[in-house]
């Protein structure tokens, strides 16, 4: 098992280097040098800041040396200072917002699994039943729903019309003076809509995937064997089939990480949630390049991490993978 993990970790290194290379290319895509671009677009940038910028990018040096220097800083999580008036290090800004985004995304993953797996299994057990048809239609609906529109509709209905749930931020005004029970209630009320919106995007794909897995497994010989030896259908489905159909879901979870992280830009900026997505949106609007680059690298790193965890998880539950 350890050999497997070490191998996966080593495989990650070239990908990580590649990620930084692509990010580096992206920032050099801009017409003109980053420094000119900054200074022509923002009159707020002082001469001193210009100089620091030039030093940050080392623009007087050849491109490969620039990249090498940039990479060295990246290893120590040094993404430079933000262009915003507070001039804080980019990493500090990202660090304080990561837990919010990761928690919300984990919660929505739990909802996705909790809803999509039963739907997929029930649809696969009775293909072409009314339930299967209804969920197929719902899946098309889910694939086609713009999540930001869903967020608007939910805000309008639960936030404005019914006035049940708050529609922005993570906490209410007097949060600091609440008792711990009130604090929990307040937090739950604030994150309900964002988490539902974030989960919705992944539901359709996951339930479709689960249905396909389950149909595939039910076709296998060992299921026929299990039925032939007279096991009750319940045991066949939930013990023999479901366990095997669940395995690939781990991979799917890893693959859904980039979508979730990307989606957090949308739901966090709509619901004004102080997470990575909202930070990124603000950085893009303010053309805060160091922050944009830092977020891009961290976002890709989280994706890699998600894939790694999925691979390791899969290897843990399925010995066939480890043997490869």
């Amino acid at each position, binding site marked *: 098992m350890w050999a497997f993990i070490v191998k996966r970790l080593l495989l990650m290194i*070239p*990908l990580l280097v*590649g*990620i930084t290379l*692509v*990010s580096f290319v*992206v*920032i050099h*895509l*801009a*017409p003109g040098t980053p420094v000119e*671009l900054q200074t022509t677009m923002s009159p707020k940038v002082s001469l001193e800041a210009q100089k620091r910028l030039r030093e940050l990018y080392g623009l007087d040096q050849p491109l490969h040396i620039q990249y090498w220097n940039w990479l060295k800083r990246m290893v120590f999580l040094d993404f430079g200072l933000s262009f915003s008036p507070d001039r804080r290090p980019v990493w500090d800004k990202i660090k304080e917002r990561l837990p919010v985004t990761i928690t919300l995304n984990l919660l929505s993953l739990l909802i996705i699994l909790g809803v999509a797996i039963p739907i997929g299994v029930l649809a696969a057990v009775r*293909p072409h039943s009314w339930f299967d048809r209804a969920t197929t239609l719902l899946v*098309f*609906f889910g*694939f*086609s*729903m*713009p*999540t*930001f*529109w869903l967020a*608007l*509709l939910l*805000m*309008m209905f639960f*936030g*404005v019309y019914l006035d049940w749930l708050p529609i922005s931020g993570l906490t209410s005004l007097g949060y600091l003076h609440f008792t711990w029970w009130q604090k929990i209630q307040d937090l739950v009320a604030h994150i309900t809509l964002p988490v539902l919106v974030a989960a919705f995007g992944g539901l359709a794909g996951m339930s479709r995937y689960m249905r*396909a897995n389950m*149909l595939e497994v039910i076709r296998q010989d060992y299921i026929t064997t299990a039925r032939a030896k007279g096991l009750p259908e319940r045991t066949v489905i939930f013990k023999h089939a479901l366990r095997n159909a669940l395995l690939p879901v781990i991979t799917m979870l890893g693959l859904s*990480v*980039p*979508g979730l*992280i*990307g*989606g957090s*830009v*949308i739901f966090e*900026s*709509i619901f004004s949630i102080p997470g990575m997505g909202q930070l*990124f*949106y603000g*950085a*893009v*609007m303010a*053309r805060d*390049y160091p922050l*944009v*680059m830092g*977020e*891009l690298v961290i*976002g*890709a790193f989280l*994706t*890699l991490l998600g*894939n790694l965890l999925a691979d390791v998880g899969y290897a843990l539950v399925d010995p066939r993978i480890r043997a490869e």
Partner: protein
Amino acid sequence: MRRREFWARFRRNKMAMSGLLLVGGMFLVSFFAPWLAPYDPSQIDLKEALLPPSAKHWLGTDPLGRDVLSRIIYGSQVSLKVGFVAVGLATLIGLVVGAVAGYYGGWVDLVLMRFVDLMLCFPSFFLILAVIALLEPSIWNIMVVIGLTSWMGVARLVRAEFLSLKEREFVEAARALGASDLRLILRHLLPNAMAPVMVNATLGVAGAILTESALSFLGLGVQPPTPSWGNILTAGKDNLEIAWWLSLFPGLAILVTVMSYNLLGEGIREAIDPRLKD
């Protein structure tokens, strides 16, 4: 007679046919927008601002008094353009990368496919936003950026098709007759690999329309005064408490359009290979 079989199967599929009809309808709406729209979509009339739906303005008006129905009708042009140009670009890149990787194999394949893996590591919405931050947000930049960040699926598909096709006898025969690499790729391999690419492209249009509307909604896509479904919704968000019609109708337009491309794509997929149904 594969084409006739395809049509026979496609026509029997109710969901696919409704997708096709809706997509056709959308094309007509955007081509005939100037005749269909009751008002000039950018005509400002502050006296008429934020009016709810009525006989005069079927879908109400926005904060500048512009007719929402007319803006939605014109907005369909943006979706159509972005959908097709972005997907065209993505498909072209994907075809070239996938064909070269699959045909030549070896280290070329290794390098190209590792690059595909690499591009898939980036949350694509992050990458798109980062590039938009560097360039100016405009409809052209959006098309290019969506295209440049969504070709990886096509590349993988084409490569997989090529890997199996190039071992087949008809390719061997063509090679024995002295066909060049380029001729083999363009005349013999590519046409046989196009079916899954078409399905992918149709579904890709749906994805591109969703991405464009999300970007425009965030103010990083099509810029006002050009109407797009996403930027009408921005006004909807700002007036959430007083103007439900601004949020409801443009979103419905996105939902219906995206769904019709998804239905069409799945319909084509099932008509090409009925086994895929399950």
